[in-house]
């Protein structure tokens, strides 16, 4: 099945003419999600549906047998291109405000993360996927005992090292963009195929994948030099280092599973669209971290 990357409505497999007509119709209604997708990914010039078909086919073409290079290329183009996402730019040498924006919005993200991964586990029939998710959730949320706290715990410690108690972090509701993204990720997890959800969620861990520069990313998620010295607190170093070390394996393992099962179950096209929807949500969510950080600026 082909899906619209803006709203996830489905079409017959390979039916790009129908998808193009859908985009033209929805854009004609000034629907912001569809107009945004067209503006950012294909063209700002209004076109007839027939003229959108070739660029859509090109956009979704894998070019290589594996799904992974396509996912990485799209992710890099969105977040690590010539003009990286503004949050990535701010995180190169982050201010206290940037890190606190990260803490407050990200604790909401991680709580949704658990739900999304739980849906994948509940709906898959593949033991290796369950094992992968259990390992991921333990790293991200549960931890391996006092010596290896979870990413969630390290996040809260980073906030405390910057002067904001965890009780304040936990009591602060998400900004509207974070709330909206979380709601849509939750809906995605309940409605979409588990292979698509696996790809949509774990591809987001590419953000901290330090090997992405080898695939063309213009910068790392943050300048690795901040992991040493005293530019940021030791707790902030602890939190960022955890992602820096874990997310190469997390994202690469998940993408290998996504590649294998999307082909085996003939789901490549819908996996692509659900992934694209997820990175649009992630784009807005990263901007919300900056917006929250602005509340801590002097």
């Amino acid at each position: 099945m082909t899906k619209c990357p803006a709203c996830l409505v489905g079409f017959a497999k390979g039916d790009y003419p129908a998808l193009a007509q859908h985009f033209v119709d929805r854009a004609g209604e000034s629907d912001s999600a569809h107009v945004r997708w067209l503006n950012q990914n294909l063209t700002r010039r209004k076109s007839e549906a027939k003229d959108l078909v070739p660029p859509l086919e090109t956009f979704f073409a894998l070019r290589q047998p594996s799904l992974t290079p396509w996912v990485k290329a799209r992710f890099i183009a969105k977040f690590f291109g010539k003009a990286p996402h503004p949050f990535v730019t701010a995180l190169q040498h982050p201010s206290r405000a940037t890190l606190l924006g990260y803490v407050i919005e990200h604790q909401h993200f991680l709580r949704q993360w658990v739900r999304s991964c739980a849906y994948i586990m509940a709906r898959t029939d593949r033991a290796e996927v369950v094992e992968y998710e259990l390992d991921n959730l333990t790293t991200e949320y549960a931890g391996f005992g006092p010596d290896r706290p979870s990413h969630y715990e390290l996040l809260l410690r980073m906030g405390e090292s910057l002067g904001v108690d965890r009780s304040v972090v936990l009591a602060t509701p998400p900004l509207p963009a974070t709330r909206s993204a979380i709601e849509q990720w939750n809906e995605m997890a309940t409605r979409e195929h588990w292979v698509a959800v696996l790809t949509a969620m774990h591809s987001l861990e590419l953000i901290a994948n330090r090997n992405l520069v080898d695939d063309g990313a213009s910068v790392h998620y943050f300048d690795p030099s901040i992991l040493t010295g005293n530019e940021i607190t030791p707790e902030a170093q602890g939190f960022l280092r955890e992602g820096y070390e874990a997310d190469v394996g997390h994202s690469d393992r998940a993408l290998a599973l996504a590649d294998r099962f999307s082909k085996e179950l003939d789901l490549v096209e819908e996996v692509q669209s659900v992934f694209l929807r997820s990175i649009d949500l992630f784009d807005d969510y990263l901007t919300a971290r900056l917006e929250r950080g602005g509340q801590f600026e002097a």
Partner: protein
Amino acid sequence: MKRNFEGCAICNSTWGNLWAGVDGERLFFCCTICEVQYRGLVERIKKETGWSHLDSLDIAGDRRGRSCEVSSEGQRARFVFAFNSEGHLLRFQPAPG
């Protein structure tokens, strides 16, 4: 007001079909988010400059960050700005230099 865009008043896209009145002008926007952005931008420029109206507005850049050059009654000013996902100003400041 003179603008450098022929399409959507904020991003120059020609998708969409939204027309709205702003400061007595009927303007084209590709979507509701861009309309919110435009209204907020013009309001903020007026607040920052103290001008009652704008004679021209030239916008450059993209969603990652934009700049604008504005004029009113022979005076000119430049700003850099960015929006959040709801279309509200996330950043707005005089352009450096």
